[in-house]
């Protein structure tokens, strides 16, 4: 019974990993840019939830849509004022450019909100409930369900709509797409907006159960990078599978072997997968 609880905990955790990784994989898939500020976008989504709760008393029903809009706007601004320009430069400029943005956002948050940990009341989405002898934490279940929904929605938009086809066309060959009458910059800005919205939603939901500080994004970003490269850069469904896998492996190894060894197990698995499938579980070779 206790093992089932461990696995359920791992799955819920994994769905959250997938949720905050989808934005990162989208940006990579669309334009081959690694957004090092991704974790700090999540962090700002978390603070959005804090501000809406403390200033207006609003729960996730208010903070999730607002965070989605705010971080999407931030994504578009980052694209037009930073990313669009550094994409013309060498790879190193891209890395350092978004890394600089990460530091700017992190220390901006430190200045605006202070270094203290903040946290939201733990019953904003109801208490935990018991189902078949297994305990579920309301806020984590909500985050997991929304995580699955967002991943599915992004996947459908990319594969089943004309706007998705146009975005993919730009990522395949921007010049050819332009000749077909697609404006690459508009599509890329749209990708940053979608990634920003998904990331904002993730932040606002994670804030319900994780303590929040300006450095929260740092830890989450590492998990996101591992999830995305394990799942395959650019693959939204890959991020979902990888997230769930990492969550369950982490939980089981922490419970059975010991919490300090869980990263060893996860990264061993990570290296093995990349050894045999360098493109990740679901990435294109």
């Amino acid at each position, binding site marked *: 019974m206790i093992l089932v609880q461990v696995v359920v905990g791992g799955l819920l*955790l994994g769905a959250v990993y997938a949720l905050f990784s989808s934005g990162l994989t989208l940006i990579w898939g669309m334009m081959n840019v690694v957004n090092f500020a991704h974790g700090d976008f999540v962090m700002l989504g978390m603070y959005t939830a804090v501000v809406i709760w403390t200033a207006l008393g609003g729960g996730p029903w208010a903070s999730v849509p607002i965070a989605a809009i705010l971080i999407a706007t931030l994504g578009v601004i980052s694209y037009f004022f930073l990313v669009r320009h550094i994409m013309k430069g060498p790879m190193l400029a891209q890395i350092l450019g978004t890394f600089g943005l990460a530091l700017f956002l992190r220390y901006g948050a430190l200045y605006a909100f*202070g*270094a203290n940990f903040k946290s939201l009341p733990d019953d904003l989405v109801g208490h935990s409930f018991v189902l078949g002898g297994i305990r579920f934490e309301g806020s984590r279940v909500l985050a997991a369900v929304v995580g699955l929904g967002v991943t599915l929605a992004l996947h459908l938009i990319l594969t089943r709509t004309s706007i998705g086809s146009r975005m993919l066309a730009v990522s395949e060959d921007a010049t050819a797409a332009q000749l077909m009458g697609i404006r690459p910059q508009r599509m890329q800005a749209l990708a940053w907006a979608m990634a920003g919205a998904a990331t904002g939603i993730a932040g606002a939901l994670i804030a319900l*159960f994780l*303590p929040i500080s300006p450095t929260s994004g740092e830890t989450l970003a590492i998990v996101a990078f591992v999830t995305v490269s394990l799942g395959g850069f650019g693959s939204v469904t890959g991020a979902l599978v990888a997230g769930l896998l990492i969550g369950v492996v982490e*939980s089981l190894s922490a419970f059975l072997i010991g919490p300090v060894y869980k990263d060893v197990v996860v990264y061993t698995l990570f290296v093995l997968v990349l050894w045999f499938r360098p493109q990740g579980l679901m990435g294109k070779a």
Partner: protein
Amino acid sequence: MLKTSRAALVAGAALLALIAVGPASAQQTVKIGAVYPLSGNSASSGNYAKMAFEMGADLINNGDPELAKIFPLAKGGGLPGLKGAKIQMVVADNQGTPQAGANQTLRLITEEKVAALIGCYQSAITVTASAVAEKYGVPFLNPESVAANLTERGFKWFFRTTPVAADFAKAYSVFLKEQIAAGRKVDSIALVHENTEYGNSVSSVIADAFAKDGLKVTTKIAYAANGPDVQPQVLQLKEKNPDVVIFVSYTADAILYAKTMKELNWKPSILIADDGGFNDPAFTKAMGSVTEGLISRSVFAQGKPGSIPAMMDALYRKKTGGDGLDDVSARVLQGFFVMADAINRAGSTEPAKIRDALKATDLKPDQLVAGYDGVKFDDKGQNILASTLVTQLKNSNYVAVWPKARATDPLVLPYKGW
């Protein structure tokens, strides 16, 4: 045009700076340097420390008539032993790294010309910063770093006022044995600790002390503090179901443990949190309502109204906008007053005289903010009268419950939680 005006601006600023720190004011101020984490992971604690310094300096420089009746240094008008010289705190950011801590210490000594130094919160940074002070022969007082080796280096300019891990372990051991004597079950003890220097060293000192005293540590769980999930650890505890759990944790993980224990509906009959994250105001604010009866340690207890700790606490709340003194800020404030007292008795800003005055320090419990048995240094610079109180969380506030002589509230067991 732009260039010339910028140059003029720089020149003007430089001129202003010169006027501000001109030779006239230098004679009337004593500069004390402090090297604390104002950015990075521990910035929260560092900024609370900074406010403690500002409050302490303000008390000595400008005074507080009520407090002055029982605390002579709060009369105002600066340090009487130095003809009313004002104290100026120069607080530098150690950025959470030993390298930056050493560099900032060097800057404070060579450029700011501070008379003495206080620092640095993190043990690892206190190591490097105090080594610089030792080289330059500047007195260095450490109010809060607990790593045992700090006072084992044969330094001549280093003083430490805080109790160390062995003092805490002894307090827990005596406390738990008293609980056994009172008829409580303490057959199995679990030690859950984060796995960097702090958690590893404190938990091993506790395990050693308990083994010597015949207390059984049956489960040890080490974990990395920065993860987003602690459910596996709590499920391990739930499965083993020990009578006593002792946590050695930082803030984010402390909040997650409190939350997860409630979610998974498990609690031991005695829950001890070794200070750290569990004493952070961010923790008590967010989790106080679901951790009622949590036992911790603290050198600070408010005490009776009108006592030095109670009045200092009220002033500190005014300074911070609501947060009272806690274990860390009280130790920092105590360190500051020990240094101020020594400089006052030295009657000089000469480093050697300040060091001699520090060596002669002999403060009694009723002269202190922190709940020590006094302040008196041994040859290694360690305060031999440092001790700790055992506290318990009641209505989101820690109150002193042990030892009985200094308890303000009765001990309530078993642990209630939510």
